[in-house]
């Protein structure tokens, strides 16, 4: 692994970004790294824009990532990639879940949804990976495990195979959810 690494997860309230970052940061901790993770709980419970940020390395001070410093951004909802894009390093990885949650501002005509932005950015972003993690999770039998499908993809693209992720997942999840999430993890890894 690189010396210091910055991981930014962006999504919509209720999508499970916090669980994904919890599994990730515990994996890093078990491997002996210093880890900090920041999250912001906004007002209300669902539907708002949310982000969690993980910083990992030998010694970490700030829990928040600076602009242009994320090694990887994972957009749990498609357009959230755009909101955080200026945090990505020039050679950073962008994983986009090809899944849209249109805010009511779009339906009400207050704010347009950038349906085609990926076409325009596919040339500019060197390491862009787009797939529908919602569908992958749904096909496995539980749409809610979408966040762990994305975890699998993060582990693959950041090459974090030195950590025993199945055992971390087992530690972090209630037993009844472990089996489905193991499948989700592997499906994400094989994307």
């Amino acid at each position, binding site marked *: 692994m690189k010396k210091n690494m910055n991981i930014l997860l962006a999504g919509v309230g209720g999508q499970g970004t916090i669980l994904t970052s919890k599994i990730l940061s515990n994996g890093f901790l078990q491997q002996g790294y210093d880890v900090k993770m920041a999250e912001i709980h906004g007002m209300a419970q669902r*539907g708002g824009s949310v982000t969690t940020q993980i910083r990992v390395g030998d010694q970490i001070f700030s829990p928040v990532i600076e602009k242009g410093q994320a090694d990887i951004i994972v957009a749990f909802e498609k357009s959230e990639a755009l*909101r955080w894009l200026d945090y990505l390093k020039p050679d950073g990885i962008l994983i986009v879940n090809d899944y849209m949650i249109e805010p009511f501002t779009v339906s009400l005509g207050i704010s347009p949804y950038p349906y085609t932005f990926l076409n325009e950015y596919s040339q500019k972003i060197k390491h862009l990976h787009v797939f529908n993690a919602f569908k992958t999770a749904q096909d496995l039998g539980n749409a809610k495990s979408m966040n762990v499908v994305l975890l699998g993809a993060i582990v693959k693209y950041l090459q974090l195979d030195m950590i025993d992720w199945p055992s971390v997942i087992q530690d972090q999840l209630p037993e009844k959810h472990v089996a489905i999430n193991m499948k989700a993890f592997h499906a994400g890894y094989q994307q």
Partner: protein
Amino acid sequence: MKVLMTGNEALARGAYEAGVLVASAYPGTPSTEIMENFSQYEGVYAEWAPNEKVAAEVAMGAAVRGVRSFASMKHVGLNVAADPFMSFAYHGSNGGFVIITADEPNMHSSQNEQDNRLFSKLAKVVCLEPSDSQECLDYMKAAFEISETFDTTVMIRVTTRICHSKSPVMMGERKVPEVKVFSKNPEKYIMVPAHSRKRHPVIEENLLKLASFSDKTDLNGIEYFDTKVGIICNGISYQYVKEVMGDQASYLKIGFSNPLPEMKIREFASKVDTLYVIEENEPFMEMQIKSWGIHCIGKDLFPICGEFSPELIREKLLKIPSTSTYENELQAPLRPPVLCAGCPHRGLYQELGKYKKKAFFSGDIGCYTLGYLPPFEAMDLSIDMGASITAAQGFQRANEWATDSQDTLKPFALIGDSTFFHSGITGLINMTYNQTPITTIILDNSITAMTGHQENPGTGISAMGNIADKLSIENLVLACGIKKENLVVIDPYNLEETKKAIKAGFDAVEPYVIISRRECALIKEIQIQRAHQKCQVNWDKCRFCKACIRTGCPALQINQEVNKVQIDSVQCNGCTVCLQVCPFKAIEKGGDLA
């Protein structure tokens, strides 16, 4: 072994290890998870109080009896608890007593940006400021030692980034000190003027001892590297500054910020070429340091408003502006917080919004504050917890003197169940007793929802999971003086019933109360109950008039290909508000869909 904890989890752990036996809190972002976590430990008494004043006083009573206790709250909660907080500084403590205030630079979920370090100075009590989760645990334990040694209240001040960031923590063992002897002592515990006049000099003397302790304690630590630049900083600012400057500066990290360590600051100032004071919000340290004749740079360079970041420090201190990697021509859509799909407040606001030109909506603090936004725009004022009824009363009394186009506005007060228990009851008593004809709507979703579902006196369960007798809002309202015929209970999922009640409330000439009752759609049991209840759009009937879209439900989406509305079956819980507003009967109850 180290474990990852948020600052809030670590504060709870620290309290547990310090042997705290009694703790009380009212939920409020970013402080809520402190009590949520503390209440999970065995061998403690933990509770959700109806408000922060109650929480502080419960903890104070426990400390007087001789156990270690704490109360936790968000920054504005300390305003509510300010009365006991200020007075109890004179009593001192017996068992250790700690108040945790969670401040919100940048107001992620708050109405103002007050820096409660100023409160510690006003009350003449100790202030500690941890900068990561390990320190949250360690400082919590130190706080009780200091409280008992110096017979004082200790305030622990954290901010959102400390509360909600995770970092590794080494846990220790719990040690419960013996319960201290309580001796009756009116001169210490009853603050009548004769006693207070004797206690005040004791507190002033105590502050001198504490100032000398502040100079000696490791909670204020100096790290010398390059001495061209010296930085005095606190809390999360320390982490940002270290991130940016590394060993290119020297640091005096203030963990014990009231009283400040004057000697240590003088010594540090004398050894560095340029002295900066880097603190979020108020120039709390800077003003004191300048008053000692020490030259330093603080708020000339760093803003009072908002929160800091490593980028901001780099830009201000090193003059290196932050750069974006990608210039975005396109923008992400606005995604403000929104009432959830199936939220019981939607039905109420759907009908209430129709009165926006004829009514004045005095609001309160909770998820329902979002009713001010389009499409409803049914909130005109929101001051603080509990202000809906009282401010509506004032508005009405003033409106009686007005002679302009607004003089017919009918005041409605909108208040949630938890907020009503918090500080709405006294307002209702005042309004009723003084016969002010306003209509109060209590939006009872049977939980403290916005902060993440904490129990309250209406839920029937205590913070420790014990079954309790639910407090009846109806009985409470009647006891406050509302006449039986002026009280109505409605189900906001039923728009016809809701409409009728609001009309009656609008026409009422006496104090009138509507209880709009339906559980929060996100309560686990409710989600299970309603998991298979969905609505669906019959595209043969949908004329794309968007009447349903104007309910603002996030489960409703526009299908661009066919120009019809579709319902996201993951989010929908079959509340049927959209079904009821559709003029073409195009929305159908799917029944128990899998």
